[in-house]
Each structure stands twice: as structure tokens, then as C-alpha cells.
């Protein structure tokens, strides 16, 4: 191996120079390993940080914004909600079950780290085409991993997304959002303070799993490469039972106010937790590697410091409380060991025995704050203008099988969602399959029902973002707003997970920057603070980058939750109305992508109109004036109305939908309303007063799904297609090779 060590660890020559400058000397191997994991893209956000700064982060209800393990907002009644989303894309490609399972475990730890009890997860997922056997293998494994871990750890899964598209064939996306609830005064931050306080490691033993790139440091010590990978598996195995006990143990410690600060161990393991707690608290730490319980014999200090073994937490405890902390850990059968102590100054010292030799010493904050920041070159695609011209509408003459096209676009997610416990804690008023998930809001300590509700939605649309990352991202935020309006909720905050390709590719960087701009613009317009997020880059395979896929999660509050929200079920005789602008364009639509038309131009979002549409939808829902409601998104009015008919078991006759655009366009700010004839005048008055465009499109009735002049289908045939789409596809079998 001729390559200098730092380069094999993924550090550039400049980065090494910087480390030497910080330390005033050459780093040793242990120190180099810590810098290499902490300065990785994953932990340092070195390519994205300059852009993330543009996101608006302030808002009336924000208690904790980006920078901590999770964002926290105030939802009234002395209750706070912690929220965070994270990706586990790459591990899920090679070992779907465990990759997804450990993704769930990781995001849940971020939430109870804040003192919050995790009450819900959501899982936006992206897989390769469903007719590809390996993509099905990935999808099946990911879903059972989320199910296996989430159900067992006891956090209900209340929603998410599933998209199959060729752009994800070599790189699926597994994002998981978690929501936690806490009494406002229990909020804790991941910081160490109080010189002399102890660092206590809670949870699993530390093994060689997930030490990734830094394992090259030890390759000399082992024989052939096979043995080496065997000894240092890149895959971690999740243990939901350990995590469940860890949740209960940590929440009990926090309730009893026995810890000063607490931090989960995620990416970069102990290096990250030790340095982050110390630097946030403005202190240093002496860290004893020999005190870390190890799963395997003969682990090197750098292995211990960089291992990503799962289900571990680092708590900062004053010596007086140690005994009680150890007792509570014992009750929950959680392993606990004192591994360090808080020191003055800002140095993180790694020792072999707490009074033993110093193995490494770095300024704790340098692992974070001094991490390199890159403003990488950006460039729009060369053919940007030509792409804009290449609209799907150009190809309309070749295709006019409206029924077939519609049937191809509909599928029930039940094959997936029925594998998830969506009801635990008795909060779930609207679960998977709703416009947005709705939870009862109960006080986290007394259990008392506040009579109010929380609503959460996750949205992402790679099709829109492939066509135009800026507008696509803004539209994604807009869709979330509308989803919340459909359940009567007022939005409070947003989190995002930015899934992009290789940042060293200028087009990818341009996409990222554009997406952040679009998201920022929309968040500012909607007065929606960004309270946290995650960036996942290098989503590529064999040189092909995925379509840009920013995912957002938006949480809102429902003031009076005394009945389930209207949902998709209309009743026989309901009048059907679409509110919002005339549909325009098919670019970026599910219909167009299904046909292979992946280019074009997106219409700009009319923010004022969108706000009005959200407002009036919310009003109608809150006043219980509509039987059913469905925002128009993927698949256009065609899919929205078909889903409503399927949910209801009642067909419809529609008119005034007479073209591909009218049927499949996904242009924004539109909602389908089903209104009982008795309420029609009432509803139309409210719509008139709100000055929103509206059109009566038909009537809910019978057992056929009819659109005058376009199609006429038996409701049963749509229903069958919808129900059997995924089960039949998965019956085709899966293979991992």
C-alpha cells in the first residue's frame, strides 16, 4: 500500500494539513481515525453546510432548532414534541433487513436522547422498479426490517411513502422519521458540564461492526482480505429488545433527574458522542477506552472509538448520582460502565485506564467545529434548456389508453403497512393511508387527553425534483401543507432529509443548492421553521446519481380533535368538487414518468393561492362540512378520485375532465371535496368567500367509475387492481443475487 494513511482513510492532503495545524504536530493513528470519521461527509456535512444555512430555522413554537439530536417544538399544555428524520440508504442496499432495522433504532435514539418518549415513526421509502427481482428483495427486506424492529421496540408506524422507480435500482432510500413527546420541563440536551462529572456508557457491548473505512488501519494485523472483512463486518445487527430497555432506562434516569446530559451513539460512535457532549458543554473529557465493554477480544483503541455498534448511549452523571444511575440500569438489565470524566479545558484525551497512558489528545471541538467546509463547484445540467422544452405533452398523440394508464398508477400500500403496528399507545386516529397521520395528544406524564391532536405527513417527489429541483422542493413543502390542511391541522415545523447523488459532481451540487433554495423559499412563505434534518449524499451506483429526492416531514396541531378527520370515504349521493387552479402540464407527473417522459418544466407555485386553498380546506374540515377530502398529488385528479371511490366502495360519474392534463396533471394547490347535497350551499358560500377557484366535477354513486368521454370502469375492477398490485408483484419472488 503506497497511498499515505490519511488518504486511505478518506482525508485529503489539505485536511491532514489542517489537523496538523490544530494539533501542532502529526496526528497518531488513533487521532487520525477519529478525525477521519468525524470529518466524513456523513458526520460533518462538509459539502452541504454552507447551503443549509439558508434554511429558515426560527419560529414562535421552536424550542430547539437544528444542531441538536432532534428539533423540539412547543405544542401547548406544557407539552413539547421532538422530531427528526434520518436516512439509512446505503446499509439497506446490502442487507435490507438489518440496514432498515438499525435505521429505525438510530432515529429513535435521537428522540429519547432529548428526554422525549418516542411515540411514532414514519418511513418514506424508495425502491427500484417492482418488476426487478432484486429490488423486490430489497423492498421486502427493508419493510420487514422496519416492521421487525419498530414493532418490537414498541413505537407505532403511522405513515410514510413507498415509491418504485428505476432511479433507485442501485440505491434505495430508507428514510425514517421519529416523533417523541415530553413534558416541556424535561427537555435535555446532549451536553456535558460540571468538571468532575462522569461519562457513563449505557447499553450494548462494543464490537468491530460498522467501523467501515478506518479498518484499513489494522489491515496489517490480519491476513487476507476475506478474514479482514469477516472480522469487521460493515453490517450492524439491530437489537430492538436492548433498545426498548434502553428507552425505558434513559427515560427513568431523566425523570429522576439523574443525568446532566445524554447523547446517543450514532455515526462515528464514541468519537462523536464524547467529543460532541464535551464541546457542546464547553468542557473537555478524559476517556478511558479500556473501560468500554467489548464484544470481541483484542480490539484496538481506534476500533473502540469508531465502532458503530448499535443500542448505546453516553450519559453525563455527577458522582453523587452514580449509584442511583447504576441501580436503574441494573433494573432494566442495561449494562453500564463509567468510561470517562469531564475535565477543564477543551481537550478530549483518550486513555488506556483512567490514570493510564494517553493514547490520543485532540481539542474536542475541533472534531466538529473545525471540520472542513466545502463550497463545491455547482453547474446546472448542460442541456437545461433542451430539457425544459422536452415536455411530455409533446407525446400525447401516441397514447390514449386512459383506463390502462389509470390502473397502472394505483396500488394499495397495505401489503407494507399491515406489517407495521400502527396503533400502539392508543393515539392513532388516522394511520397509514390517510391524507396525513393524526394522533391524539395526551399529556406525557399524566396521560390526560388534551382533546387536541397532532398531525404529521412526510412527502417527497423525485419526479418533480428531477424536472426542476428548486420548484420541485417548493412544491413538496406545499403538498405537505395541504396534507395537513386536509386533516384540519395548523402546520408548526418541518424536518427534511436531503437524499442526493455524488456532491463531487457539479450537477448534483447544483441540484442540492437549488432544492435548498426552493425549500427555503416555501418555508419562509408558509412561515414554517426548519427544526432539523439530515443530508444523505453519494446516493449513486455505477456512476449514475439518483434523481434528487428531498423528503420533508411536517408536523401540525389540531385544535379540536373530537372526531376522526374526513378521510377518503365519500357517500352515495355526495357532490364532488375540485378546488384550486386549472391543471396545467404533465411534466414530472407519475403518468409521464411511467411512460418514460422524465423532462419538461414545472409550473411555478402561486403561494397566495396555495395559502388560501389550505386555509379554506382546513376550515371546511374543522367545521365538518365535507364527507371526504383528498389533495391532488401523484397521479392527478384521476388517482385521487379513484382512491376515494375504492375507499368508499361507491363509484362516481365525473365530467369536465376531458384530457390527459385534466386527468393526470399534478399541478399544485388542488383538492377534491365530497359534499353531502344538504351542505352544498353552505360549502359553496365558504368557497366563494375564500375566493378560491372551484369546479363541480360530478357525483358519487353506483358501482362504476366513469369519466365522461374518457373511461368507464367497473369499480370492482379498479379495486382488484389496487388491492392486488403489490401482492401479485411480490409473488413473483425475490432474489438477492
Amino acid at each position, binding site marked *: 500500500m503506497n497511498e499515505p494513511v490519511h488518504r486511505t482513510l478518506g482525508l485529503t492532503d489539505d485536511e491532514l494539513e489542517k489537523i496538523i495545524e490544530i494539533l501542532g504536530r502529526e496526528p497518531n493513528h488513533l487521532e487520525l481515525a477519529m478525525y477521519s470519521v468525524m470529518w466524513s461527509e456523513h458526520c460533518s456535512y462538509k459539502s452541504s453546510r454552507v447551503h443549509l444555512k439558508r434554511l429558515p430555522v426560527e419560529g414562535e413554537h421552536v424550542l430547539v432548532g437544528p444542531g441538536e439530536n432532534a428539533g423540539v417544538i412547543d405544542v401547548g399544555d406544557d407539552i413539547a414534541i421532538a422530531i427528526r428524520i434520518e436516512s439509512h440508504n446505503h446499509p439497506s442496499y446490502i*442487507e435490507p433487513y438489518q440496514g432498515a432495522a438499525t435505521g429505525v433504532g438510530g432515529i429513535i435514539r435521537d428522540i429519547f436522547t432529548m428526554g422525549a418518549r418516542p411515540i411514532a415513526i414514519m418511513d418514506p421509502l424508495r425502491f427500484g422498479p417492482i418488476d426487478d427481482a432484486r429490488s423486490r428483495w430489497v423492498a421486502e427486506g427493508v419493510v420487514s426490517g422496519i416492521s421487525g424492529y419498530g414493532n418490537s421496540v414498541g413505537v407505532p408506524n403511522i405513515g410514510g411513502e413507498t415509491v418504485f422507480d428505476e432511479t433507485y435500482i442501485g440505491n434505495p432510500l430508507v428514510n425514517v422519521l421519529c416523533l417523541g413527546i415530553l413534558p416541556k420541563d424535561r427537555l435535555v440536551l446532549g451536553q456535558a458540564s460540571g468538571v468532575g462529572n462522569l461519562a457513563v456508557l449505557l447499553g450494548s457491548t462494543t*464490537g468491530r461492526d460498522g467501523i467501515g473505512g478506518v479498518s484499513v488501519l489494522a489491515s496489517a494485523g490480519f491476513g487476507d482480505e476475506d478474514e479482514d472483512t469477516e*472480522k469487521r463486518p460493515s453490517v450492524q*445487527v439491530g*437489537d430492538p429488545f436492548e433498545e426498548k430497555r434502553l428507552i425505558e432506562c434513559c427515560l427513568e434516569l431523566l425523570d429522576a433527574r439523574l443525568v446532566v446530559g445524554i447523547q446517543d451513539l450514532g455515526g462515528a460512535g464514541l468519537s462523536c458522542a464524547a467529543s460532541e457532549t464535551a464541546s457542546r458543554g464547553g468542557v473537555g473529557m478524559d476517556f478511558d477506552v479500556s473501560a468500554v465493554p467489548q464484544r*470481541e477480544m483484542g480490539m484496538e483503541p481506534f476500533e473502540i472509538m469508531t465502532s458503530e455498534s448499535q443500542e448505546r448511549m453516553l450519559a453525563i452523571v455527577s458522582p453523587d448520582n452514580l449509584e442511583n444511575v447504576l441501580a436503574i440500569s441494573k433494573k432494566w438489565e442495561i449494562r453500564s460502565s463509567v468510561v470517562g470524566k469531564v475535565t477543564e479545558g477543551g481537550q478530549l484525551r483518550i486513555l488506556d485506564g483512567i490514570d493510564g497512558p494517553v493514547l490520543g489528545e485532540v481539542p474536542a471541538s475541533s472534531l466538529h467545529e473545525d471540520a472542513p467546509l466545502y463550497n463545491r463547484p455547482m453547474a446546472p445540467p448542460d442541456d437545461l434548456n433542451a430539457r425544459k422544452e422536452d415536455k411530455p405533452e409533446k407525446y400525447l398523440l401516441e397514447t390514449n389508453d386512459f383506463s390502462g394508464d389509470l390502473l397502472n398508477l394505483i396500488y394499495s400500500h397495505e401489503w407494507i403497512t399491515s406489517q407495521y403496528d400502527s396503533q400502539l399507545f392508543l393515539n392513532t386516529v388516522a394511520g397509514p393511508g390517510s391524507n396525513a397521520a393524526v394522533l391524539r395528544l395526551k399529556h406525557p406524564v399524566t396521560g390526560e387527553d388534551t382533546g387536541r391532536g397532532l398531525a404529521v405527513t412526510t412527502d417527497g417527489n423525485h419526479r418533480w425534483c428531477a424536472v426542476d429541483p428548486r420548484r420541485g422542493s417548493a412544491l413538496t413543502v406545499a403538498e405537505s401543507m395541504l396534507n395537513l390542511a386536509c386533516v384540519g391541522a395548523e402546520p408548526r415545523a418541518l424536518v427534511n432529509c436531503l437524499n442526493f447523488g455524488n456532491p463531487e459532481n457539479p450537477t448534483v451540487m447544483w441540484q442540492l443548492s437549488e432544492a435548498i433554495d426552493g425549500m427555503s423559499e416555501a418555508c419562509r412563505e408558509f412561515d414554517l421553521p426548519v427544526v432539523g434534518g439530515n443530508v444523505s449524499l453519494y446516493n449513486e451506483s455505477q456512476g449514475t446519481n439518483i434523481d434528487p429526492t428531498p423528503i420533508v416531514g411536517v408536523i401540525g396541531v389540531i385544535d379540536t380533535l373530537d372526531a376522526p378527520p374526513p378521510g377518503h370515504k365519500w357517500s352515495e349521493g355526495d357532490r364532488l368538487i375540485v378546488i384550486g387552479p386549472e391543471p396545467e402540464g404533465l411534466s414530472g407527473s407519475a403518468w409521464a414518468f411511467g411512460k418514460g417522459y422524465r423532462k419538461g418544466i414545472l409550473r411555478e407555485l402561486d403561494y397566495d393561492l396555495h395559502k388560501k386553498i389550505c386555509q379554506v380546506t382546513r376550515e371546511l374540515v374543522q367545521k365538518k362540512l365535507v364527507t371526504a377530502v383528498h389533495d391532488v398529488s401523484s397521479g392527478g385528479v384521476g388517482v385521487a378520485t379513484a382512491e376515494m371511490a375504492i375507499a368508499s366502495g361507491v363509484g362516481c360519474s365525473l365530467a369536465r375532465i376531458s384530457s390527459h392534463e385534466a386527468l393526470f396533471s399534478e399541478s399544485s394547490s388542488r383538492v377534491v371535496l365530497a359534499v353531502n347535497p344538504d351542505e352544498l350551499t353552505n360549502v359553496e358560500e365558504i368557497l366563494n368567500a375564500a375566493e378560491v377557484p372551484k369546479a363541480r366535477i360530478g357525483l358519487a354513486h353506483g358501482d362504476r367509475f366513469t369519466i365522461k368521454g374518457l373511461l368507464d370502469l367497473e369499480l370492482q375492477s379498479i379495486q382488484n387492481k389496487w388491492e392486488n398490485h403489490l401482492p401479485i408483484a411480490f409473488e413473483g419472488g425475490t432474489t438477492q443475487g
Partner: protein
Amino acid sequence: MQFEATVEVQLKAGIADPQGSTIENATLKLGFNGIENVRVGKSIRFAITADDEVKAKEIIQDLCDKFLTNPVIENATIHLQGVE
């Protein structure tokens, strides 16, 4: 020819086995001493018809690679026994 095959699928050596450790702890609590390193795997038995033993092994190996294991975290051991 027909063979009885057993494929034992085990987690690779470095991979954590939470189920195994939990069982190990439970044996202690049940008063069984001296039990260590519990690892839990699958045992898959089936009958296979193939021209000869070599061929049978080949098929089973292929089956393991494609389907029965994920070589990233698991190993398979194949046992074969002729019945006719």
C-alpha cells in the same frame, strides 16, 4: 438420485447475535451454568433430486447464494446424504 439436504445458516463470526446473547442470559437465570457463545441460526431441511452428489451440491450452493442466505452477514453449511 435423491438426497436429503440440510442447510445450516449461521450469522458470520463478527456479526452481533442479540437473540443468542439473550438466550445465553436466560440460561443463566434458569440455573444452567457453563453455557457460552450461544448463536442462533436456521436449519433448512429438504429433499433434492439431482444427477449426482456434485450436481446436488452445486444446485444447493446456488440456492444459498441467490436466496437462502445473504452472504454479507450469513454463512451456509451444506450437509448432504444420499437416500437412493
